[in-house]
């Protein structure tokens, strides 16, 4: 009870909970779930963009994209390590991902049929991710908060690159402009869904807020994203596919149309365009790599034994 009180005090004082501190089991579980989901999103998120590495239209873009996807793998590594400070290990978490028992961000269940999708993901998806993640830099759990500081910096860089891709396309040939507009048309609504269901339908939020794992409500963050994206779309010369979108001088915010939550729930339930593809791809890489990991373990064991002998 003294421990619980100290925990509450620390959180209330905006101080950090560290791995060796006592914490409530539910807090630990919530964090593990959230960090794991975040890590899974990084590594599944490599696929839609990775789809264009071999086909990038210039060497410069190829290098930027390679570096970006590498960053995502790096973020994944970093986040799995953060989760491991809470007493799970990466192998367990990967098994849960592969078995479909832990989620990743639904946004990665949409396909990338054109090069402009790489731009749209950078601009909109990374943009939304940053809005979601910046508050986590002040999360009550120390390792997660510190990881997010670094990750957010890198993602800002990615977002800027995505914006540049779209900007170049938008002011390029008519075909390139159409390609950019088409990508934005397809990614806009899914990006808005990245902030999760509306507040009145978001069950776990309250406790996460109290624990200072979450800092703002889904709808607040979504509004923040829209307010940021609309002027950027204008700068790009691209149209956001929402006829109801308009500036509301009174509130100082952009108002936007109703989100189709049926689609969101279908994708979440595993029926999105690429759910099966993404998990199969992951599982195949994992299974085909099993003999390699076994070899590395066997080698390490042999040499540890020799060193010990």
């Amino acid at each position, binding site marked *: 009870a003294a421990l619980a009180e100290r925990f509450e005090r620390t959180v209330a004082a905006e101080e950090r909970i560290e791995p060796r501190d006592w914490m409530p089991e539910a807090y630990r579980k919530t964090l593990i779930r959230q960090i794991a989901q975040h890590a899974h999103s990084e590594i599944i998120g490599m696929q839609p963009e990775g789809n264009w590495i071999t086909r990038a239209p210039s060497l410069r873009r190829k*290098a930027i994209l390679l*570096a970006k996807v590498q960053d995502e793998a790096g973020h994944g590594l970093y986040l799995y390590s953060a989760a491991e400070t809470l007493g799970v290990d990466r192998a367990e978490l990967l098994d849960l991902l592969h078995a479909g028992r832990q989620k990743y961000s639904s946004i990665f269940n949409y396909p990338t049929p054109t090069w402009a999708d790489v731009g749209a993901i950078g601009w909109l998806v990374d943009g939304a991710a940053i809005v979601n993640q910046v508050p986590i830099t002040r999360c009550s759990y120390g390792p997660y908060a510190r990881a997010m500081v670094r990750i957010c910096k890198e993602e800002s860089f990615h977002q800027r690159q995505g914006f540049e891709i779209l900007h170049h396309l938008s002011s390029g040939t008519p075909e390139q402009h159409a390609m950019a507009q088409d990508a934005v048309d397809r990614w806009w609504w899914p990006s808005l869904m990245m902030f999760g269901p509306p507040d009145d339908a978001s069950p776990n939020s309250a406790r996460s807020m109290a624990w200072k794992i979450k800092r703002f409500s889904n709808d607040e963050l979504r509004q923040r994203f829209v307010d940021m994206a609309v002027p950027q779309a204008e700068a790009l010369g691209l149209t956001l596919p929402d006829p109801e979108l308009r500036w509301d001088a009174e509130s100082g915010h952009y108002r936007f149309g109703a989100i189709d939550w049926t689609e969101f729930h279908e994708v979440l339930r595993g029926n999105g365009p690429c759910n099966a593809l993404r998990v199969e791809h992951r599982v195949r890489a994992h299974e085909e*790599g099993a003999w390699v990991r076994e070899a590395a373990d066997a080698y390490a064991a042999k040499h540890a034994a020799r060193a010990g002998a």
Partner: protein
Amino acid sequence: TAATVQYLLRLGDDALVLAQRLGAQLTRAPQLEEDVALANIALDLLGQARPLLARAGELEGRGRDEDALAFLREERDFLNCQLVEQPDVDFAGTIARQLLFSCYQLPLLQALTTSADEVLAGVAGKGVKEVAYHRDHAVQWTLRLGDGTEESSRRMQAALDRLWPFAAELFESDDLVRSLAVRGVAVDPASVRPRWDADVDAVLAEAGLARPSSVRVATGGRRGLHTECFGYLLAEMQHLARSHPGATW
């Protein structure tokens, strides 16, 4: 300079094509650390390829930049060795290719740091550090796979046997490279063979792997003759760029 252009294309195409193969492995590696490592190696190689191709285009003087050379050349005009275009059958194949290539590329770049061509010397100077890491990565994995499990040893040996015929081409010398070597621009690749033999033999011995005995010698890459898998690699790499003639990205 036509000779220098050819030489730059050989080196640049080697790096470009190997980067392309490695880039395709991203999201397919046996563990996340390897996704990062392979991406990193690919990025280094791409970083070498770009100035080499750009320099080739500049010396050629026909207005072709790095992208025109990468995306608008036909198969018969690519001068990379056949080794780098060989497909990734499994992780052992990826590692074997890396081992054979990085053990060649490292001494080559070391010698090229003093090239009379400034760009070449610059790329080599920077590349030496990177490739030292590539080689180390390949060596570590060769040891793990060779001296790991029965399956990994079998796969690693099979990969070496499969790729060995493509190694000889790395060291092929011809008039072009010899004349450039005399002028201090190029390095005769035959000169790095002893070092390569020693390095590779040492790793294989430590890993418990046999040096393949294949007598077959695959060749042709430096004359633009490639194995049948290469056309598919190019189709994938070039399709978008070729689909939008004149566009920039």
